């Protein structure tokens, strides 16, 4: 059951061979036995989960179910969830019980899924290793000495360790794709604007995008069918016609033009990752795809540009956490400024502070043009690179991460090295393009390798199909870490 696809679970539920209550209890049991080790969840609330399961069973019984009704889903703790502690991985919000549901949560509730728990994450989604969480690091189920990636590390770990059939995540510069890659699961970040940001605690508004993490492309398609939708409460939400993301899954690979940007295979890429990615590309070739070398000349700029723009937006987005209306407030303070100072000093961790500092600096008088404006111009150039390349090929492939999961603590004192984890993913975020990661093998120490697939705007159905076809002829996505037997 824990290895079942969403489709299989859906059938089990619909044919009443299993109830949502039973399914929920099973996954809760898994969480209970594994979470101490992996720390993938910040909040688990059996009672609330089971309440939802009861509702789901009633929906199914009355024939009102939809494909995901009754299926437990883990939600990244960045999504405001009514009645649930919603911490964003921060001490700042360690006492914040959300009075409302994010749009994404509303959609899952409407679909009748069960919230199985809120997953751990880098504080305010700032990190690539899940080590910046106030609630402690998440462990990679493939190797508990290594990181799961971040910032949606809890979600990726929960899916990899079978604590949830699927999970939600968010991706600002690679926060879905990189942890999916490092944990050997599949994840997709849709085109910017497809998933509403309402109720998704903002890190960098112009980049943040929700998306699912699951065991396969087919499961991701079902998750996207629930998550994507126009929302008038998010001005950047796109009025895009509703799609069935499963519709193209069976589409052929024959004749597909795959572009391999030479910049993605240059210096900085580990050999083990390179080998696994090469093998995956060879598999596509075997399936009839045409492999073309392309160039995204501004790739190198994506990390510097990202680390100007994202902190700039973050420095402003995080201003609301001032200890006045909710969240952490220092026990003692002498005056207003002191209250701000102490509350924020105590409430935020080192990485968040670093980014607030960077962001404040680049927006400051006298530096704004040199940093922020310049970065915006370069962002446009980076996006234009993709526009050009998509004239030559249908999709772009490369490694999701330059290396397999690194060891806990290895990069936590070296922010620059940590930032380079997003070297291949940040560009698609800056361009607003959909990107996904699927497992395609293992590198050193038997740690998973992910293949990064970038599509053109709104090409989610297409890249899901490309991934699905690969998963029809390979079994990397079915591999499971060696976790305690249940």
């Amino acid at each position, binding site marked *: 059951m824990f290895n079942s696809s969403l489709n299989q679970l859906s059938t089990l539920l619909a044919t009443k061979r299993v109830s949502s209550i039973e399914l929920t209890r099973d996954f809760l049991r898994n969480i209970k036995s594994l979470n101490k080790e992996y720390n993938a969840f910040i909040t688990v609330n059996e009672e609330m989960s089971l309440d939802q399961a009861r509702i789901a069973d009633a929906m199914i019984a009355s024939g009102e179910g939809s494909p995901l009704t009754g299926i437990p889903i883990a939600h990244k703790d960045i999504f405001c969830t009514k009645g649930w502690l919603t911490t964003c991985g921060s001490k700042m919000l360690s006492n914040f019980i959300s009075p409302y549901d994010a749009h994404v949560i509303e959609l899952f509730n409407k679909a009748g899924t069960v919230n199985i728990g809120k997953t751990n994450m880098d504080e305010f989604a700032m990190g690539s290793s899940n080590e910046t969480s106030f609630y402690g690091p998440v462990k990679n189920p493939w190797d508990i000495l290594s990181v799961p990636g971040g910032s949606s590390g809890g979600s990726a770990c929960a899916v990899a360790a079978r604590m949830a059939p699927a999970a939600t995540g968010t991706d600002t510069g690679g926060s879905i794709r990189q942890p999916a890659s490092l944990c050997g699961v599949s994840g997709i970040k849709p085109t910017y604007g497809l998933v509403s940001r309402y109720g998704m*605690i903002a890190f960098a508004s112009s980049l943040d995008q929700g998306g699912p993490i699951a065991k396969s492309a087919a499961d991701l398609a079902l998750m996207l069918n629930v998550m994507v939708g126009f929302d008038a409460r998010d001005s950047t939400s796109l009025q895009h016609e509703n799609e069935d993301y499963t519709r193209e899954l069976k589409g052929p690979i024959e004749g597909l033009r795959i572009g391999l940007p030479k910049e993605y295979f240059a210096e900085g890429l580990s050999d083990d990752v390179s080998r696994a990615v090469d093998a995956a590309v060879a598999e596509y070739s075997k399936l009839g795809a045409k492999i073309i070398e392309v160039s995204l000349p501004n790739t190198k700029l994506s990390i510097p540009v990202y680390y100007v723009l994202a902190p700039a937006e973050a420095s402003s987005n995080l201003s609301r956490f001032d200890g006045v209306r909710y969240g952490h407030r220092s026990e003692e303070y002498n005056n207003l400024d002191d209250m701000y100072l102490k509350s924020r000093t105590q409430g935020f961790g080192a990485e968040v502070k670093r980014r607030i500092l960077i962001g404040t600096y680049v927006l400051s008088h006298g530096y704004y043009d040199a940093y922020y404006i310049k970065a915006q111009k370069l962002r446009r150039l980076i996006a234009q690179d993709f526009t050009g390349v998509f004239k030559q090929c249908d999709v772009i492939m490369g490694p999701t991460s330059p290396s397999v999961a690194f060891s806990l603590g290895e990069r936590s004192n070296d922010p620059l090295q940590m930032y380079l984890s997003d070297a291949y993913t940040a560009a698609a975020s800056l361009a607003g393009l959909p990107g996904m990661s699927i497992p395609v093998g293992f590198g050193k120490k038997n740690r998973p390798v992910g293949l990064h697939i970038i599509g053109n705007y709104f090409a989610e159905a297409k890249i899901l199909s490309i991934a699905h076809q690969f998963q029809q002829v390979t079994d990397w996505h079915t591999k499971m870490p060696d976790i305690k037997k249940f």
Partner: protein
Amino acid sequence: MQWEVVVGLEIHTQLLTQSKLFSGASTTFGGAPNSQACAVDIALPGVLPVLNRGVVELAVKFGLSIDARINSPSIFARKNYFYPDLPKGYQISQFELPIVEGGQINIQTGKNNEEDERIINITRAHLEEDAGKSLHEDFHGMTGIDLNRAGTPLLEIVSEPDMRSSAEAVAFAKKIHTLVRWLGISDGNMEEGSFRCDANVSVRRLGDDTLGTRREIKNLNSFRYLQQAIEYEAEFQKYILETGGKIKQATVLFDSEKRETHVMRTKEDSHDYRYFPDPDLLPLIISSDWIEEIRASMVEPPDLCFSRFIDSEIGSNGKETYALSKYDATMLTVDIDIATYFEKVVRIIGRKEAKLCANWVIGEVATRLNQDNKNITASPISPQQLAELILRICDGTVSGKTAKDIFNTMWDGESHTSADEIIKIKGLRQISNSDEITKLVDMVLIENPQQVADFCRGKERAFNSLVGQVMKKTKGKANPAQVNDILKERLKKKN
């Protein structure tokens, strides 16, 4: 030494919308603290702003009324600073590319409206959200925060430093005040803070081209304070310069009790607001179709209405003109409701009697409204009722004086009765029958031989006394012009 005062104004006017600039919460004034603050206003984690379309229309109306450019796109930007009543830690405003740019306003500053007309250029007008309120009383040493006002839409209107005195600044502020209320985009209520001014004041030697260093006086919420603050500030700056000092750029507050300004902060400790485009909001695109739609829905701006009231030729647009004096037109266009009331009256009576109608509206109606502290929309006498009364003057049924009595009768509780009814019930119909008046005149001449003799000796005053006698006999109902004529004629015969 001759000094010149230079003033530029920034006027914050609250726009009249049901809901806030970026949320659906109500903008009604005076609710219990935080009863009108929704998740967006409180800035809960994860909430996002959504622009209120109605606000855009009001800003565009203002822009069109002053012949400004409507920018498309215009950009919303974040102005970052920490304050407890600023829930997001930034205010959404417009910085580069405001919605309205350019435009101008004419002001009259002299006592005589014919003189001293000046053009004040508008730099820009941009949309921004208001902050909440910090309440420093009643919380046992703590500060209370009321976020009802947070997110209320404001239009900040910024002028060029084109004013040269406190009087001009007040004239400009009043003109804007009239305009925004006229257009229906703001209630202009200064007590409730719907209309507040910041004044940038500097002085320079008369004839200098360059501007002096300015100081900004914040948050002036009455025209009187605006005037007093600028006057104090100008004198202060002159004094500093004349005694060899230098003006340091600063933001100051006006103490209305002491009538002085005090430094709030200097340039050195001014905030770096770190403006940048708000990534939660898309650039605001306003299509020319939308602009035309808004233009079509607009009332006639006050300046055009004023011109029409003084013009004697009917304009090319076929709209009525009334050939009024500038004074009358000014009085009638201080408020759109007054202008509308006047036009309703004059439309019934006809433009030939426009002056008479204007007199009534500016005179009797305005006086009674003032006494009762009422807006003209709450006048107990409708334009229709007033028109019927004025018609009875025109057709000679009653004299102007009687008409005023009837007016007061109607005003004091006998509303919904027509002038005709009152004339009928009280028998106020004027005597215009010349035979009848001649009889009365002859009677008065017989009864007052002394006055007749006086008149014949050249005492003009005696004539008035005789007229009075005739009027007395008719209880004021005789047509005074007719009495005059007949009396003159009879006295001529006696001579």
